[in-house]
């Protein structure tokens, strides 16, 4: 879509539109760096470049992609890998519900197209926009910008990692867990909603996964770590049923 068409779509004053466009493109470039890390992680997990690029083009939701290759890289089964990707992908269902009033995608085709770009960043940018027109613009430009950089940088990362020797491979082995930690980190900060519970759940998830590692097929311990939500993520008092009832 041309910039002119996008600006007609927004139909709002120029400075606000410029700010929205600038933020959306900037976010796309920043997220592109994660694409390099994903391409490298996919290569480290044994995926070829076409599989890595297919994930970025078709799955297009970062945390799920990292989880899928993470489980496969740990020697996990396809089922455990897909399961962890889907568990992380449930976020996008809730984002879609929040975006419907804003985007109002009319018709089946538009809905099918819009759905592909419903991710963390596009949702955050669309909901943060000052009005509905800019919200639509933010969704489209952020989606386009991230889709392009994420896919291009995935190829760069996968190609780059494929040519690495022994020491560089050791470096890459250390980069993959660091990339997961960087994805997790914002949830552990004091400013994140229910940060204390997030931390308990995170520690619980890590402990459960390590404790199960010697006893279960590879990858299963990652999916099993969701029991940490039931163990450590106590619901707010009086609002919700107990964890065990919910998870049953």
């Amino acid at each position, binding site marked *: 879509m041309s910039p002119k068409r996008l600006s007609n779509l927004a139909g709002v004053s120029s400075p606000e539109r410029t700010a929205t466009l600038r933020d959306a493109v900037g976010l796309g470039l920043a997220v592109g760096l994660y694409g390099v890390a994903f391409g490298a992680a996919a290569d480290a997990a044994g995926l070829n470049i076409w599989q890595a690029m297919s994930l970025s083009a078709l799955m297009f939701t970062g945390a799920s992609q990292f989880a899928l290759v993470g489980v496969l890289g740990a020697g996990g089964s396809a089922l455990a890998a897909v399961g962890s990707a889907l568990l992380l992908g449930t976020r996008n269902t809730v984002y879609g519900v929040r975006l419907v009033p804003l985007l109002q995608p009319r018709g089946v085709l538009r809905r099918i197209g819009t*759905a592909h770009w419903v991710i963390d960043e596009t949702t955050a940018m669309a909901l943060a926009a000052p009005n509905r027109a800019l919200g639509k613009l933010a969704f489209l430009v952020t989606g386009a910008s991230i889709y392009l950089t994420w896919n291009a940088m995935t190829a760069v990362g996968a190609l780059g990692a494929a040519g690495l020797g022994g020491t560089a491979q050791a470096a890459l082995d250390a980069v993959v867990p660091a990339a997961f930690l960087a994805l997790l980190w914002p949830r552990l900060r004091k400013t994140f909603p229910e940060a204390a519970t997030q931390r308990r759940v995170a520690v619980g998830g890590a402990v459960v996964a390590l404790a199960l590692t*010697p006893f279960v097929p590879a990858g299963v311990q990652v999916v099993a770590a969701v029991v940490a939500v039931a163990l450590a993520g106590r619901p707010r008092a009086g609002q919700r049923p107990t964890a065990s009832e919910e998870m049953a």
Partner: protein
Amino acid sequence: MSGTALWAAVLAGSLGCYLLKLTGLSVPAAWVEQPWVARIVDFVPAALLAALVAVQAATSGRGLVLDGRLVGLAVAALALAWRAPFIVVLLLAGAAGALVHVVTG
């Protein structure tokens, strides 16, 4: 794992994740805005990502392994605590892992 199984995981995972996105745009809000859904969405990422950090940094097959990856992870945690940019975090972690590899041979 065979190429076919990898492709199956890639395509099935992609289709499933897409359908989760499409569902959000297609079903009544009340179906999705349930307390138990909110709970999964709020807390499952922390559990899964932490599990992946632990498994990627400290295991190999069915054993617990302490090597350069754990040193890299510690360096990454320090860098994140100092609010270093993502790329700096990864470069420092990679450098630490490579250093341990060289030192320990």
